[in-house]
């Protein structure tokens, strides 16, 4: 996607989000905020699982680190932006170490290797006073208003859109292409002079930073955080977002986060709150079976139709194999 098209689509998205944040009723505004926040984690997971095919169950750790660093620094009266960045830097450093150590580990072994990180932090946060033990911590809004106000959600949407736009620039730049290359053919990538190990670690760090920012903002949207943020289910949720949304696609990541937030919410609204997980499970199963490349597959189906039409109008010289 060209840079111009990216700018236009992100500005449209931002405009829609801002509009919605001022006109939607509180519950949907809350969902909107959640969706915006999760979309960063979803993009982060996609850089790992979708782009470089490193399956991680450890991203909950970075989510929790972001949330906790933010909440603790906030209680020390430190500027919000600095708190978010501090969490992101810490996550990035940890991800660099983990990514480097596990570079030889693949597939399910990598998933389990990374799973260990949130399990470890779950125990640590439960045990420490500064993190509020099992009770967790309250998080105050970014501006002097109550949690979940229009302005609050609008600010979150602006922040996530900017970061989302930067990630989409990265994804469509030579870095994103190098990620694709390492996944599709390691030999081919090496022959093009792409340092596979380096880019796998870069994906890890990038993923951690995005997930951490997402975690910081999550606290702001929800208003409190508990050690439950380090649960495996959180990581699984991110995986679902990335895979059901669409592997290796930023648009897909956004769709995935909308999917994971909206399906349970839909069940809530129609009064079947206790069945919301059922809806999520069936929804993702059906989506994967119908569109193995994810929700974004529905979009690309339309695009492909158009592409085929262009090709057919063009003469093809050699059709031999």
């Amino acid at each position, binding site marked *: 996607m060209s840079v111009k098209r990216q700018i236009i689509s992100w500005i449209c998205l931002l405009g829609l989000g801002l509009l919605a944040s001022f006109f939607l009723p509180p519950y949907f505004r809350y969902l909107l905020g959640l969706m915006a926040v999760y979309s960063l984690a979803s993009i982060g997971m996609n850089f790992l699982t979708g782009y470089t095919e490193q399956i991680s169950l450890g991203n909950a750790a970075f989510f929790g680190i972001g949330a906790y660093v933010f909440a603790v620094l906030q209680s020390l009266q430190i500027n919000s932006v600095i708190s978010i960045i501090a969490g992101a830097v810490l996550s990035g450093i940890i991800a660099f170490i983990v990514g480097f150590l596990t570079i*030889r*580990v693949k*597939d399910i072994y990598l998933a389990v290797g990374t799973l260990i990180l949130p399990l470890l932090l779950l125990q640590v946060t439960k045990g420490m006073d500064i993190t509020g033990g099992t009770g967790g911590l309250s998080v105050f809004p970014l501006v002097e208003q109550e949690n979940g106000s229009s302005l609050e959600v609008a600010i979150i949407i602006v922040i996530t859109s900017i970061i989302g736009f930067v990630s989409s620039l990265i994804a469509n730049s030579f870095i994103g292409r190098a990620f694709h290359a390492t996944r599709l053919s390691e030999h081919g990538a090496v022959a093009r002079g792409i340092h596979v190990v380096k880019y796998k670690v870069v994906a890890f760090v990038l993923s951690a930073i995005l997930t951490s920012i997402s975690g910081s903002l999550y606290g702001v949207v929800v208003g409190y955080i508990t050690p439950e943020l380090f649960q495996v289910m959180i990581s699984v949720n991110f*995986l679902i977002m990335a895979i059901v949304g669409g592997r290796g696609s930023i648009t897909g990541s956004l769709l995935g986060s909308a999917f994971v937030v909206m399906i349970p919410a839909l069940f809530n609204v129609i009064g079947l709150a206790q069945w919301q997980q059922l809806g999520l*499970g069936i929804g993702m199963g059906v989506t*994967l079976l119908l569109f*193995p490349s994810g929700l974004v597959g529905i979009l690309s189906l339309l695009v492909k139709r158009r592409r085929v039409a262009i090709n057919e109008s063009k003469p093809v010289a050699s059709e031999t194999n």
Partner: protein
Amino acid sequence: MLQLILDGLIYGSIYALIGFAISTLFMTTGVVNFAIGETITFSMYVGIITMEWFHTSYLVTAIEIIVLTIIFTVLITRVLVIPLLKHGPIISTIGTASMYIIFPILTVGLSTQDHPFPKAPLPEMNLGIISSWDAVIFIFTVLIAFLLHYFVMKSSWGVGIRAIKSNQSHAMSIGISVGKIVMITAILSGLIGGITGLIAAPKLLLTHNLMGTPFMVALIGAVLGGLNNPKGIYFGCILLGVVQSVTGGLFGSISREIIPIVIVLIVLVMKPEGLFSSIQEKRV
């Protein structure tokens, strides 16, 4: 101290059983069935409810539970794992995660309570140091470990399983029916899963979280030992169980969680294919 080790052995055995259930399907497909634990829990709840309502005997209930687990595992394999496998094991694994979400809801729909689950009507023996049910757990696990090892390493089906594991398209070209073998491993996985439930529930109490934590620990233990061979899984899970129990007893509950995790991390960094795995890393 001895008591702690024995405790660890028993818990390790339960982990190992779950590990076997995970690995049988993993061997042929490279997919970890995330739903296996929740499938077992659901079947156990169906079992206990029929037992309470219709007063079915233990044997009938046990058979019912095992059959149900097999049916669910086969269905998951048929409907989700195999169709998604052509898009890669990662997608397929995530596909099973949808059932990992669904089954707990169904279980809650059946019953919201915890139930004590009866032990098999075996003669109680006074073994002194361990209860007789613990002995059953231990012996059964060793038995299944041996059977599985012989099935995979020695039987003709086992040859097929290992052939698929090493090269799927080649296995197909020499006339091994991949679909059939995958289904066999699915049935096997369900069978072991059902037995695991029957063995573990009396010890752990039948709750909604019967297999929640054990599944994760079992997965870690199985990876620690090497997911591809029964021997590795057995020793990996036993090791994890013992280390957990001993560190928990000596240093308190937080270390019970942390120290095993640190061990696994070290092992994975040093030997990514698992402690007891003999398979060489694929050369690029």
